[in-house]
């Protein structure tokens, strides 16, 4: 990932004016005018309130916004320092914006923030999404404190989620990454995270493989690279994560293709690490965990079930290339069940995900096609999960998810076996 030309001359001269800092907060943007000012304000208040002794800078790599995002970032300021903390020594708050190189996406922006953090000799660096509505100054404290005060290298987020929210993370990405990498990290693709200066340099020294995978997979890559590098990993409660209503975002199939594919790609990069690791370890957690049973997120279970059934019927020739005969047989059998009796068992789902990961590794068909073929099966799993937990409380849902995670851990030898087949 290291590249001398990541930062433009103009951007470097802006950073030179800032000089050395202790904290870098990166906010990558692309047409986020509606929300970015509030996000930057929250960050500035957080820095002033909790880290007034440290020198800090907000870095804003922009993907070519044409709605005045950069102007909104530059115009953001702490409304009134006295309302924050009257005793604060007033430091100059630097906000540096600049276009990032390469294609639009997470990768170029993250790379620019890493290079800036390295150049400025930052001790801690946090990444924050620009379209958050629920961010508070406390998020900055929660992300930075474990690094500056507790000497951790990587801080992942824990969000307060509604029931049936984050289904892809809960049903696939979290169990898979926990089983493979051996860390019980709640949000392996969370977009709010922080890392130490030494880890930032480690990220810059790594080769991320294909350039385009970082477009959507940068956060998965950061998290898994920190774990695979043996760095001290922890997580912090941030609270509910509410995003602004977006422009047409990526649909479910694209999300599975890009983010699921990015996780499989990370597994390829870190194969020597995860294939030699057994079991999982808990991750130190900071902050206060609220036990609130929020209203469930709205998901059309019936539509998901019917799309699963038709997907299994129509995609037989594609699935035959990806799945083992026994797994495909199992999926065909459950696809014949009535909706009210439909269940996608944990073991079958775990094996399905593992066989997809292995087939991705072996490139049995085009990788984008392979990930798209996973979407109908994921819909089946989600439909079954919602059906099983319709009347369950938050704790019961969590207990069922823990069963899935344990099942994935139990089947890790199966993952390694299928992964190594024919390679």
């Amino acid at each position, binding site marked *: 990932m290291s590249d001398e030309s990541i930062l433009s001359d103009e951007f470097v001269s802006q950073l030179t004016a800032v000089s050395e800092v202790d904290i870098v907060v990166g906010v990558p943007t692309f047409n986020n005018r509606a929300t970015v000012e509030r996000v930057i304000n929250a960050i500035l208040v957080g820095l002033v309130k909790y880290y007034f002794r440290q020198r800090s800078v907000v870095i804003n790599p922009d993907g070519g916004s044409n709605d005045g995002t950069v102007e909104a970032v530059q115009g953001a300021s702490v409304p009134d320092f006295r309302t924050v903390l009257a005793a604060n020594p007033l430091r100059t708050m630097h906000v540096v914006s600049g276009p990032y190189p390469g294609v639009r996406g997470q990768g170029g922006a993250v790379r620019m923030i890493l290079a800036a953090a390295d150049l400025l000799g930052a001790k801690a660096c946090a990444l924050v999404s620009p379209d958050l509505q629920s961010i508070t100054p406390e998020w900055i404290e929660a992300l930075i404190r474990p690094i500056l005060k507790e000497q951790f290298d990587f801080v992942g987020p824990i969000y307060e989620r509604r029931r049936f929210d984050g289904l892809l*993370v809960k049903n696939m990405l979290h169990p898979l990454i926990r089983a493979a990498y051996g860390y019980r990290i709640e949000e392996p693709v969370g977009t709010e995270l922080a890392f130490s200066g030494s880890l930032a340099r480690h990220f810059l020294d790594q080769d991320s493989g294909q350039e385009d995978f970082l477009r959507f997979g940068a956060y998965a890559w950061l998290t898994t690279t920190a774990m695979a590098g043996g760095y001290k990993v922890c997580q912090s409660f941030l609270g509910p994560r509410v995003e602004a209503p977006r422009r047409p975002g990526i649909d479910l199939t694209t999300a599975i293709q890009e983010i699921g594919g990015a996780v499989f790609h990370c597994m390829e990069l870190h194969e020597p690490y995860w294939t030699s690791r057994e079991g999982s370890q808990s991750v130190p957690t900071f902050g206060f965990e609220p036990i609130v049973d929020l209203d469930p997120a709205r998901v059309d279970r019936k539509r998901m079930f019917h799309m699963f059934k*038709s997907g299994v019927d129509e995609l037989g020739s*594609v699935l035959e290339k990806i799945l083992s005969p026994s797994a495909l047989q199992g999926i065909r059998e459950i696809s014949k069940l009535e909706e009210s009796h439909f269940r996608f068992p944990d073991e079958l789902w775990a094996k399905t995900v593992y066989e997809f990961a292995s087939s991705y590794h072996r490139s049995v*068909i085009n990788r984008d096609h392979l990930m*798209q073929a996973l*979407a109908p099966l994921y819909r089946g799993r989600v439909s079954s999960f919602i059906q099983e937990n319709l009347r369950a409380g938050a704790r019961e849902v969590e207990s069922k998810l823990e069963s899935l995670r344990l099942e994935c851990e139990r089947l890790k030898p199966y993952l390694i076996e299928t992964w190594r087949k024919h390679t």
Partner: protein
Amino acid sequence: MKELVIRTVSEALRNVSESAARILPRLLAMVIIFVAGWAVAWLVEVILRRLLVLVRVNKLFEAKGLTQLLTRAALPSPADIISRMAFWVVWISFMLVGVNALGVLVLQQEIASLVALLPQFIVALLILFFGFLAANFLSRAVLLAAVNANSPSPRLFSSFVRFLVLLLTVTMALERIRLGRGVVLVAFAISFGGIMMGLAIAFGLGGRNVARRILERRFAGGREAKEDEDKDETGSHL
């Protein structure tokens, strides 16, 4: 009369035996060249395959993504393909020499025109190969997109795309080796035009309500509703 018949028959027999005496050694030479050619080709194939395996040509092609491409098209490994091709090139060359040894003028002319067509034939084979790959890739892409968009009859869409790509490929390949040039082009134009017109009529008559809904949703205020729908699918998953 009797003498004339005997003379004619003996002359005919003499002619036949002379012709046989002239042709048989050439025929024998041709068979020997065929057999020797097969042996040489087989030897070349075996040696070349071992050599390619020794220099790990499969690994080399794997790094370039070609091995996966061949696997996806259900074709053998690069080492197998190269050695097999060498076999056929060597043997066909021997066969052409053998047929040439017969000394039949018409055959020699046909062989000359065949040899002249060989480069075009190889190009046509390449067109077919890549056309086959493209047809597979595109039909699968359409199948997956249709399934994930919850469209009716995804396999019909997919087969239709495969048929169109293969039709185009075969037409291009035949055009390349100048086989029934006019007929193929006209047949392709009629088939393609017919399919497109059929589709246009079918969509116009059968799908006018769907088309209206799509256009309304796209241009007349339905956009927000569609965006909300998309967000529901994604927002609760990540």
